[in-house]
Structures are given as C-alpha cells and as structure tokens.
C-alpha cells in the first residue's frame, strides 16, 4: 500500500498487551534485545524504548483513589483500569531530535517520517536530550543513535510495517495519516457515546509538536501514559533566544566590570615592581615594552 504521509494510529483501548509488536519489530529490524531483566513492574520487562527496543508496550495499573473499590461508577472499569499502550517514535511534524542534531543525520523521508541515517550519525547524543518521548537510544555497539524507522525499508517496498502487520487486535493501524485521522475521529465518537468521556486523541491535531504521524487514542490523560500534555509539548529551540540574550547581557555587564577594575587599579605598582626582573623570570614580550610607552 503506497502512502504519501505514513503513520500509525494506535488505539490503546483495544491493546491487549501481547507484545507481538515488540517481537515483530525486533525480528524484522534484526534487534538483539537487551539482556533479560526482571523489572518487577507489572507485566513490563522491556522497560523503555531504546536502541534495542523500538516498540515498547507500557502497562499502567491505574487504581482509583477510593480505596480500590471496584464497583464505584466512574469512567473506565469502575475507576480501575489496566491500561496498555504500545509506545513508539511519534515521527513528530516538529521533531525535537531533528532540530538539535548537529550533523543533519536526522532527516525527513519521502514518506514524511523521521529517520536517523546511521552512516551520518556520530553519536553525540544531542537528540537523546531533546526527544521529549524518551524514544532514542544510544548503541555502544554501533556508536550511534537508534530509533524506529517506521520500517523505512518495508515502506520502500509498499509493505506494512512489521508491528502493525503483527498486531492481532489491530490496535496499531498503519496508513496515510489523513485517512487514519478520520478513522480515529469515528472511533473516538463511538467511545464517547459509550460513556468513556476521558477517551481522547493524542497528537491527532497540531497542538502537540505540529501533529504526530504516529498518534494515539488514549483512555486517560496523556501524563498517565508518560506523554507530555499540549502545554508541555515544547521544542528545545524555545530556549535559544532567552539563553543567548542572558549570555549577551552577562557579557556586557562583565565587560563593564572588567573596564572598571582594570582602568581603576594597577596604576601604582608596589615598589618591588620597579626593580629589574629577577634572573630566571620570563622576559616581557616585545608587545609589553610597546605598552609601557603608551601614555
């Protein structure tokens, strides 16, 4: 299926946490995975997105504040929910990683996705400090940064990305972003009609990083899933102007301080200075004798 603007619509309301997406991603992309780790964190033993995990199924045990009473009428499952979400690079329209990358290793592809060119990346890790979604990981083995490519090689062959292909519930839907958005709007309306008033789309419009090619249907607020809300979805470059201005003002004040200190002081050297330089002390440069003659 040829797409102009490729993306995923991940409907978390039908994710069952089977991790087929994680496995398919690793298999297609030849990712070894990290050493097994018992995280004792719900059903999660992946931990986070990194150089070896380009898909990560998050498990969020969301308990109500009312002493865990299950039958309290509330939005989802009596206020008690076991939320699952297959997380991935969002392929942001305004991508923080791309903004800061000094080598231009991070580019936008012909499919409108965000891609790290492995042969260009020099492993400075600036993108890691910039990505607000904890997506990019550094590989010691390659010395470079890695993340989901949205199966760039499969896209070139008109194939569906491996994770979407493997997802048994079609929680991960792949396609052209505009079409996915329509699909998401319909699904959201249905959920609202069923009484899930907290259900919401994340990244479907341009409030979050100009829109996300990989956007989500969430059953609760973004923060619950570890995603910044729209007010906090900010680009690193927001600090350029105040940062440099702060530096400029500091420089100006420091220069004035230097001017005061160096003009005011130093005109009355102690008598010992008038004596010839002792043997073994480096002679003044030719420049200094020139200065000494200055009025």
């Amino acid at each position, binding site marked *: 299926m040829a797409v102009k603007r490729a993306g995923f619509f991940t409907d978390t309301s039908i994710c069952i946490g089977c991790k087929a997406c994680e496995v398919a991603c690793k298999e297609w992309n030849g990712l070894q995975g990290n050493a097994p780790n018992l995280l004792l964190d719900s059903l999660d033993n992946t931990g*986070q997105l990194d150089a070896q995990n380009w898909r990560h199924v998050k498990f969020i045990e969301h308990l109500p504040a009312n002493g865990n009473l299950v039958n309290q009428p509330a939005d989802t499952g009596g206020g008690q929910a076991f939320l699952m979400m297959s997380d991935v690079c969002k392929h942001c329209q305004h991508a923080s990683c791309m*903004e*800061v*990358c000094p*080598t*231009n*290793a991070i580019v936008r592809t012909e499919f409108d996705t965000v891609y790290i060119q492995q*042969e260009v*990346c*020099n*492993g*400075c*890790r*600036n993108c*890691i*400090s*910039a*990505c607000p979604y*904890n997506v990019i990981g*550094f590989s010691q083995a*390659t*010395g*470079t*940064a890695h993340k989901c490519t949205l199966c760039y090689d499969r896209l070139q062959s008109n194939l569906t990305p491996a994770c979407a292909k493997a997802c048994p519930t079609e929680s991960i839907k792949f396609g052209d972003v505009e079409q996915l958005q329509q699909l998401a709007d319909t699904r959201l309306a249905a959920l609202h009609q069923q009484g899930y008033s907290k259900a919401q789309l994340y990244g479907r419009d341009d409030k979050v990083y100009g829109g996300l090619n990989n956007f989500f249907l969430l059953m609760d607020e973004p*923060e619950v899933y570890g995603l*910044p*809300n729209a007010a*906090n979805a900010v680009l*690193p470059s927001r*600090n*350029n102007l*105040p*940062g*440099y201005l*702060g*530096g*400029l*003002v*500091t420089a100006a*004040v*420091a220069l004035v*301080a*230097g001017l*005061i*200190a*160096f*003009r005011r*002081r*130093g005109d009355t*050297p*102690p008598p010992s*200075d008038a*004596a010839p330089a002792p043997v073994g*002390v480096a002679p*003044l*440069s*030719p*420049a200094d004798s*020139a*200065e000494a003659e200055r009025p």
Partner: protein
Amino acid sequence: MLLAEHFVKPPNWTWLILGYFFLAGLSSGCYALGVMLRLWGRPSHGSAARIAFLAAFPLVIVCPILLTVDLGQPTRFWHMLIDSAGGGLNFKYWSPMSLGVWGLGVFSGFAFLSFLGEIWAPVGRLLHSLLGGLLLVVGLVFALFVGAYTGVLLSVSNQPVWSDGWPLGGVFLASGLSGATALLLLLIAARHRSQVAASVGALGEADRYFVVIEAVLIVIFLVTVAAAGTIGRLFNVVGIGLWVLVLVGLTVPLLAHSRSRVLWPVLTSLLVLIGVLALRAAVIFGGQS
C-alpha cells in the same frame, strides 16, 4: 504555576563533557581577560595580559580532544562541520551544538594567534597595531560566545533542570570569567608575581564583580528551576555537596580580598576553581539524575 513535565532520557554526558565545559570556560575567560587587560587596562597590566593569552590557547586545544573522545563515532567528528551525506557545510544556527563547534573552532584560531603573539615578536607587533586591536575585539566576541554557549547548549533540550533554566548561558559565562581570574592569580602567585603585582589587585577586584554577577544569575537559575518543579534533582546528597563547593568558590574571593588582596592567593584561587568545576558538575549530573 505550571510544572514542567519531563519524560526524556539522559544523554549520558558525563566526565568528558564536564572537563570540556570547565576548560572551555577557563580558556574563553582567560582570553577575554587578556583582551580586557590589554585593550582597556592600565599599561602596567601588560604582563598579566600576556599570561592570560599564554594560558588561553593550551587550555582550548584540549577541548576538541575531549569532545571527540566523547562521541560514539570519534572518527566522524568532521560530520559536525561538513554534511557527509550531501556535501556542503553543516551550520545550524538554531542548534547550539552546531553553532558551538564553529564558534569553538574560530575562537581556537584567535587564541592561537594571541598565543603566537606572545612568543613570536612579528605577530606580537601585529597584534599591537590598530588591526591587531580589531582582531582582539573580534576574538573577544568569540571568547564570550564560547564561555556562554555551553550553558545554552544544555538549555536547548528537553532535559529536566537544563531546559527549565534558561539563564545557564550567563551563569557559565560569569563563572568561567571568575575561574579564569582565579587561574591568572594562581599563575601569577606561582611564577610571575614580581612582574604583575600591580595587576593582582585589579584582578581581585574584577573577580569580586564576576562572582557577584555569577551569584545573581545562579539565584535566577535556581528560581526558574524551582518554578518548573525540578529543583529537587539539583539537591540530592552529591548535589548538596557540590553546591556547598560552589558557595565556597563564590564567597572566598569576596572575604579574602576584603581583608587583603594577597591573602592566601593560592588557596583562594584553588577554591574558586573547584567551585567553577562543582557548578558545572552539579548542573550536568543534576539534570541527568
């Protein structure tokens, strides 16, 4: 109050980057002091300016080495400057890392020129001409940029603490100037005292101004970080220890110089330098904790 939400991973910038930030701050500070002393200082400051220029270049040449070793692919350092995929230059003015690499390169050139001027008379004479004065002023601009940009580099991210504190550029610049002043006083105390005793008082006075500027900026920085709700990261057990060192580095020059301009110059300067290093360590590691 809007608390910042951060779900970002640390880039693992550690000791090499700390070393780079420290040396870049000292080198740019030395160069800036050298220009200030030479261009608008009293004639008796000539020797102090000379020491400043002699120190700036050796300090800055270590910087690209540290930066390169820290890369995952050190042999691709040049990718920072040249677009290895499409040809042409890589210059992204909105990315402080890109801008900084260029700025550091140009500043190194100026630092080298001034170093040369101190050891080779023909260049020394050139730098004392009108053209030389102009070159020093341009070099000063790049020195001040290098002193400040490392802080801006941290701010231009989505990392907690770093991105919450936009005044970091000014903080690092002021602290670099203070550290460079301490280094000059140390070098003077170690070797050149008889020639530059006249400058000791002036440098001490400048240092007092620099630490006051730095202290004000640190307070503004801490307020911005507190407003974002991430200040706790700066004050874990190690962090508290580092901030104590920062505080000592800020207050010692004020106390020492208020009693006597030469009171324990070596100890005072060492404490200031440790404070400059501790400040960078507190910020670098605090933001990644």
